[in-house]
């Protein structure tokens, strides 16, 4: 009984691997901003069936322009089914129930983990390239990103200066974040990590001042709007401590998802360090 069942499962697995895995997916649906961007970077235009509605928001999506050509989805099961996907790529934030339901219905769903460093970005790019049968394109993308980062790294001064990502409401990026790695690669020290912040967390204003950062960075994604949270970035002490140097805005779209666009952010951070 047991044996026959396992044989059945094995056969089913082989069958699905043959019909789905070996063939190049031509109707790929992405339900998450992070997979949207990787898909748009790596797929041939004919492979993409749909991307999520966030993919066209220029503040959060690096590939907003390219995303406009494709139908948008809201990660609802019903609308996904009507798209007749042969591969669904989802992110760690996609609802578990949605993923499970799609899998039960026989669809192939690949869930991409979140990224908190450049090595994980590479892994995600390679994973997507492999799924799309676009390995050469994936390698090219990774190599270009690495080349840009190492060029920048060679140019920045050795002495690291204290800096901080300061977001509305006093949020910051500590250890194990892309921001932390990017700062350290570009000749900055991350005051938040040194203060003991792990991941994304709050740092109080007094601790910020005591660390005497020479430069603040921010990724405010509500530009042009007003709130108490955003007013916190206007605190006069923040300007005084850096000798009047204005806070530099490094686009939200480079960080919200880990991807090769991290190279753009790193170049921007390095440029300010080299000034």
């Amino acid at each position, binding site marked *: 009984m047991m044996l026959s069942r396992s044989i059945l499962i094995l056969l089913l697995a082989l069958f699905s691997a043959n019909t789905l895995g070996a063939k190049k997916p031509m109707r790929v649906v992405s339900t998450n901003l992070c997979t949207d961007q990787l898909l748009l970077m790596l797929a041939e235009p004919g492979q993409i069936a749909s991307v999520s509605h966030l993919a066209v928001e220029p503040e959060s999506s690096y590939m907003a322009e390219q995303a406009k050509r494709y139908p948008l989805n809201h990660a609802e099961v019903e609308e996904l089914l009507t798209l007749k996907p042969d591969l669904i790529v989802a992110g760690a934030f996609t609802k578990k129930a949605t993923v499970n339901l799609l899998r039960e219905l026989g669809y192939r769903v690949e869930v991409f983990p979140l990224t908190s460093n450049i090595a994980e970005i590479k892994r995600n790019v390679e994973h997507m390239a492999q799924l799309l049968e676009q390995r050469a394109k994936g390698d090219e993308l990774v190599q270009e990103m690495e080349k840009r980062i190492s060029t920048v790294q060679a140019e920045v001064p050795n002495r690291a200066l204290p800096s901080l990502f300061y977001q*509305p*409401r*006093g949020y910051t990026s500590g250890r194990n974040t892309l921001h932390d790695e990017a700062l350290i690669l570009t000749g900055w020290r991350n005051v938040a990590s040194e203060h003991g912040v792990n991941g994304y967390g*709050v740092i*109080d*204003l*007094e*601790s910020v*001042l*005591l660390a*005497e950062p020479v430069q603040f960075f921010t990724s405010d*994604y*509500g530009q*042009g*709007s*007003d*709130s*108490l*949270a*955003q007013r*916190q970035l*206007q*605190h*006069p*002490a923040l300007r*005084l*401590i850096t000798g009047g140097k204005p806070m530099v805005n490094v686009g939200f779209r480079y960080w919200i998802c880990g991807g090769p666009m991290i190279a753009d952010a790193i170049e921007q951070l390095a440029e300010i360090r080299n000034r």
Partner: protein
Amino acid sequence: MSTLTAKTASEMNQGMLLALLGLLVVSLVVISLFIGSNPIPVFQALQESLDDTPTVLSMILTEVRLPRALIAAFAGATLGLCGAVMQGLLRNPLASPGLVGSSSGAAFGAVAVLYFGLGTTFWAALPLGGMLGALGATLLVYLLAGRDASIVTLILAGVAINSLALALISLLLNLAPSPYAVREIVLWMLGSVASHSMNEFWIMLPGVLLGSLLVTGNGRALNALTLGEDTARSMGINIVRLRWQLFLAVALAVGSAVSITGAIGFVGLVIPHLLRPLVGYMPGRLLPVSALGGAAMLLMADIAIRLFPAGTEIKVGVLTALVGAPFFLYLILKTRRAQL
């Protein structure tokens, strides 16, 4: 008026009382300067802040801790004073900016201005929004409850207007263009004096001072009002003018304070009650005493939340409500007993 000033057992000399409360407020401001997330040598910081070039220590003292202490002191004084004014004017022991809707009205006005882009164009837009909101809500409650409203009617009208203001604040914050707005409902409803700069203090100050100035000199009229409106009128007091002047004063002061701190509850209710026996139940003498008492209460609450061993700081309004709500219930029980 000497017949009215027969001394009660707990009554104190007014000058003495003011001096003591003043000393308390000053000490609390100083204590407040010593408390922060990091221990810093405050005296050294003070010395350095007298120099021309700002140092880190002087910045923490003058740009972070000082505005917090000053905002707490002035916002607390506003709430204490306005509580005393309202209880005197409406001759209702449960009247206060929080219960009569002035605070939540002010918060609504400030929210309408701040989140829809008017706050950055003109510095006074924010307190003006708060003032209009406070005035509107107070007048609405006053009209709803009627002139000689019973305690219950006034409270019910206040509850209705408070709920309406809360609903409108939530609605506005949901519609606001800023992605951060929705999470700030709590800040407006409970109030906080944390993470402000001296800019906010200067924005709040004119309205608070102007409001207090409008109240000054009306003590005698409030004393007379305790004898009933007719008697007060026969004593030459223009009740209509008094009412408008005091409503305006409350709107100016509460509107400015709340537009910076959010609606901090119960200070305006508790403080006048605690201090009333000490001034021989004279509404006029209660005014300056309540202002100092309110400042002391809010400073104490703000010091307490900073000493509280919680991971993230709780809002100061949480503490004033935790102290104030049981007190409110006690007052209700007391008035019920008095009515029996």
